[in-house]
């Protein structure tokens, strides 16, 4: 039976990730990118691919390590602790899971290029300010043997840097998912300066021509491919946010022990002790939901929707609580750009919105629970 305990392999993977990321991508790395006007570091991604992380969900025959969703969540959690900027979620989790739903030779090749770190992806779904795939309006009109795409996508995370785009568009009788090179004629990408200093783009499609080969899965049936990919992405994002919460919380507890006022460490004050203890409880409870989501995706993916939405809702809530308490308990220094807590707060806000906010996922939980 599925155990809500990390396996030895998962613990080793997380430890190795921590060791690598503390060297290669502490929070200072994100700060450096921001100060240089960049959102990603391709060399870092190559290093992560060399560690096998790009292929964590890629089958072994395509060169991946195929370690599963719980392992992907363990990696995402470590990345969240130091706010690692990389296309891991978009490429190694979401695109890889989508491609795995399709069993043709092209998909296997695409998976191999993901695992090697050669190719990165972004998922282009949102058109409004809130995540709602079913509300997609962008048109892919049938034309000859192919399609003509017109419309605009917003908040395409990792979209300015990605080599390829997974694009959701409306076709005759439903929604269809396209897998397009980002430099296809008619595609214009505008990277946006985001509060979390990470990559997100506004992308316009003006008479973009797609062939039948560009369709991932079946025409008018995007969800067979996309739904598992979204669930995988939501779970890994939840894990990242839980890691973010743990990172912010760890900084806060250290500060409570160091900072002195009234001649004592401020952590001696019960008003702060109880708030910190409460936050720890919230982090622990969320960790259970994350572990459960990974296990469900690996062992019973058909029935994982509740577990994934529970994880995303809880992680969203916990991360936001952790960064708000983090700033408050740090006092004035928490408000300064020179201190890292602000980076955590801003990433928590972006993570809260991406792939469905608290309300979106709480509604899914409630429906599954008879509300």
């Amino acid at each position, binding site marked *: *039976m599925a*155990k809500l305990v990390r396996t030895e392999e998962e613990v080793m993977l997380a430890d190795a990730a921590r060791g690598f990321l503390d060297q290669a991508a502490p929070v200072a790395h994100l700060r450096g990118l921001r100060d240089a006007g960049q959102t990603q570091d391709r060399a870092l991604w190559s290093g992560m691919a060399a560690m096998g992380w790009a292929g964590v969900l890629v089958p072994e025959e395509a060169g991946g390590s195929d370690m599963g969703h719980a392992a992907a969540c363990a990696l995402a959690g470590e990345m969240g602790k130091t706010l690692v900027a990389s296309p891991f979620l978009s490429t190694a989790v979401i695109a890889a899971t989508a491609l795995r739903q399709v069993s043709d030779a092209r998909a296997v090749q695409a998976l191999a290029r993901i695992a090697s770190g050669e190719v990165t992806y972004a998922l282009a779904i949102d058109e409004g300010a809130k995540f709602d795939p079913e509300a997609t309006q962008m048109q892919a009109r049938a034309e000859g043997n192919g399609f003509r795409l017109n419309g605009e996508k917003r908040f395409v995370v990792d979209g300015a840097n990605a080599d390829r785009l997974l694009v959701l568009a409306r076709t005759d009788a439903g929604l269809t998912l396209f897998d397009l090179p980002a430099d296809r004629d008619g595609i214009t990408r505008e990277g946006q300066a985001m509060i979390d200093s990470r990559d997100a783009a506004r992308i316009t499609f003006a008479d973009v021509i797609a062939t039948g080969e560009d369709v991932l899965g079946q025409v008018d049936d995007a969800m067979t491919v996309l739904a598992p990919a979204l669930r995988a992405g939501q779970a890994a994002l939840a894990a990242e946010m839980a890691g973010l919460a743990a990172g912010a919380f760890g900084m806060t507890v250290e500060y409570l022990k160091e900072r002195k006022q009234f001649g004592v460490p401020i*952590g001696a004050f019960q008003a702060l002790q*109880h708030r910190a*203890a409460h936050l*720890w409880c919230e982090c622990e409870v969320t960790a259970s939901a994350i572990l459960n989501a990974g296990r469900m995706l690996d062992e019973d993916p058909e029935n994982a929707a509740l577990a994934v939405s*529970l994880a995303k809702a*809880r992680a969203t809530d916990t991360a936001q609580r952790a960064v708000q308490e983090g700033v408050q308990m740090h006092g004035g220094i928490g408000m300064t750009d020179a201190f890292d807590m602000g980076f955590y707060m801003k990433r928590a806000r972006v993570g809260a919105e991406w792939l469905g906010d608290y309300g979106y996922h709480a509604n899914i939980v409630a429906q599954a*629970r008879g509300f």
Partner: protein
Amino acid sequence: MAEEDRAIAAFRDELRAWLEANCPADMRDGRNDEASICWGGKNWNFTSEAQRTWLQRCVSKGYTVPTWPVEYGGAGLNRDQEKVFHQEMRRLNARYPLQSFGIWMLGPALLHFGTHEQKLHYLPPIARGEIRWCQGYSEPGAGSDLANVQSRAEDKGDHWLVNGQKIWTSYADQADWIFALLRTDREAPKHKGISFILLDMTSPGVTTRPIKLISGASPFCETFFDNVEVPREQVVGEVNRGWDVAKYLLTHEREMISAAGGTMGSGRALGAVLADSGSTDTVLRADAMRAEVDGLAVALTLERYKDQAEAGQGAGDASAMLKYMGTELNKRNLELVMAAGGSDALVWEDGRAPNWLRTKANSIEGGTSEVMLSIISKRVLGLPG
């Protein structure tokens, strides 16, 4: 399928068939409120024939204490089997056949600290629902500062002479025996002069007085010991080391109080409660959805810590966290139940109000929420002071 999985599947099939064949129809409503619980003991009056039958059948299989060893009246289930047991009980919406402080608290403490003779003597009657226990911990001057207990047991050679007063002794007026923290060394530091002693409530010199609570019920009592003679061997663990037993037992008590949170008395999920009420209040709905999200995650955390314990990974001060989160959630849930019920729920006879009021004690009994947070801040977070 691995052999392990086949074995667990076979266990599930067998258990399911047994439950289908043996759980009386009236015991399949999932109720877990005060009026439905079977507490057992010499003074117990079964509320129905079905309740009696269900208890007897479960006793015969060891299912009142499924994880206890068979020789002490249990079914000897391992962790996977235990999970299946609870899943199948829930699937049938079966009531638990017996609940008691003997099962939740004294049993685990005896299994850990008791001698073989003590286990053989005390555990099977708990499993069979024959002896009902109560807990003699708090005193008027020892609430959150529990180690400050002043009731004392004097060494008289072949027996202890017990004098003092306990308070908040749940169901002491109906219990057959009491496990009590008593001071056996008045010179030692307060944690080091306490012993964990078992007393027969029918001993001369024991009296109880129920305390009427805001719910209208009197589940708690004051218990007085006036020159009570207790046989020497009724100490669990070492003399003057009772605090170790007390703490161990408290972790089980906290998990029990926390686990009770999921059932909300009526044994029904918040979604169903809301649907029944016909409420169209979107604010209430949103609050209930948040509580549902948190409740599911807390329930998973309980499972995670059990899995960790089974895997030999220390769970730290998990019980303090579970107790705090579970009881705060339970209070929140019953507030929502009351809001969903509107004025219907304000009538005593309706039955929701006593459950709602009862939950207010959850974050006080077994260590207050604030004590739990202080334990976490010191032991887990290592904060000073």
